[in-house]
């Protein structure tokens, strides 16, 4: 069981290394409105 515990944590560490570093921008309504307001000002 100790081995499985170490292995599962190792899997997470590897996943962090291969996970995307640049993400597509997601349009969150409140964020979009704030950006528009800032632009208008």
């Amino acid at each position, binding site marked *: *069981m*100790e081995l*499985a*515990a170490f292995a*599962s*944590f190792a899997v*997470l560490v590897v*996943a*962090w290394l291969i*996970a*995307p570093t640049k*993400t*597509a921008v*997601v349009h*969150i*309504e*409140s964020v979009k409105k704030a950006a528009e307001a800032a632009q208008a000002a």
Partner: protein
Amino acid sequence: MENINAGDTAWLLASAALVMLMTPALGFFYGGLVRRKNVLATIMHSFFILCLISVQWVLWGYSLAFGPDHGGLIGGFDWLSLRGVGQTPNPDYAPTVPHLGFMVFQMMFAVITPALITGAFAERKRFKAFVVFTLLWATFVYDPVAHWVWGVGGWLRVLGTLDFAGGTVVHITSGVSALVAALVLGRRKGLGSIPIEPHDATMTVLGASLLWFGWFGFNAGSAINAGGLAANAFVVTNTAAAMAALTWMTVSWLHKGAPSVLGAAAGAVAGLVAITPASGYVDVSAAILIGLGAGTFCYVGIQLTKRLKVDDALDVFGVHGIGGMWGALATGIFATVAVNSAAADGLAFGNPAQLGVQAIAVLASVTYSAVMTFVILKLIDVFVGLRVPEDEEVLGLDASQHREAAYTI
């Protein structure tokens, strides 16, 4: 009084206070996830339940759950309004602390359980319907199931079910009831066509952090003494919460392209849910695996629920239902007498029968909670009406149900 142990009593009373904190923390966890027009109503669900069940529990709830047994099913009325529950320890439940201390510790569990369900019907339930539902649900679902699992003579306890701090009693009952409530109430107006976003993610993360803090009382307090078992429960609780948070964040990162903050918070709660029944029976390696499973299964479960277009608004079934079932079954896999000599080994230690017992407990609690919740909701719909009218839903529950606003700035 000579049997009372000061350390045990101090720890149990402090644990009761820690568990009490979890209910307002849940209010903030849920409050941040709803739109700003519903935040006050959502927090009120938790705060109101803290008050309502505090009174229900001392009047009849504790007696039904822990009072002298009737057929393995219910506790009866012997301890109504705490008659006979005093400063002397009850040797069956807590031999070294005052019976009143054990009662108030259990009260806080009875309080938070119906509060968990409120996340499923957030932003659309009539307040009066919520009040009646909570009182009926606590009496006809929570109290009997608590007796089955924890009450002396309860049929699941006699069968050998292991549920250290409430995986079956608290999380499966509330999670399954939440799914039924979401199905009976139907979807929120505009869901899928207008953006429905959490209004304050910081409030949610703070709520999750306070839940985590309170959970040390929930699980380590369930040892009912200030000894090694409490320390084990404390350590495995923290480990599973951390591992599940890391796992959920990682799975969501790989799935959606970004490491979600709300995902990490939800993952921590899922890990806390899953370790709850196991915390007095498993070691730290098992806690890591339980956390890994919680972060994965709960995340996948929520994606499936959303795909089926069930509006479980704040993912109560995904976190508490699925997390609770995984925790109950994982207890049957990873339990070991090396941690708790009064318990039993699980599948991983050569006792597959324990997994079967845990599966029976899961099946019984799922079926009973689902049927009873459906009946209660249908009755309330006939006599009170479950949902607010459409115009009130659009206006928001803070204004329509409470005539107040959360923010004036």
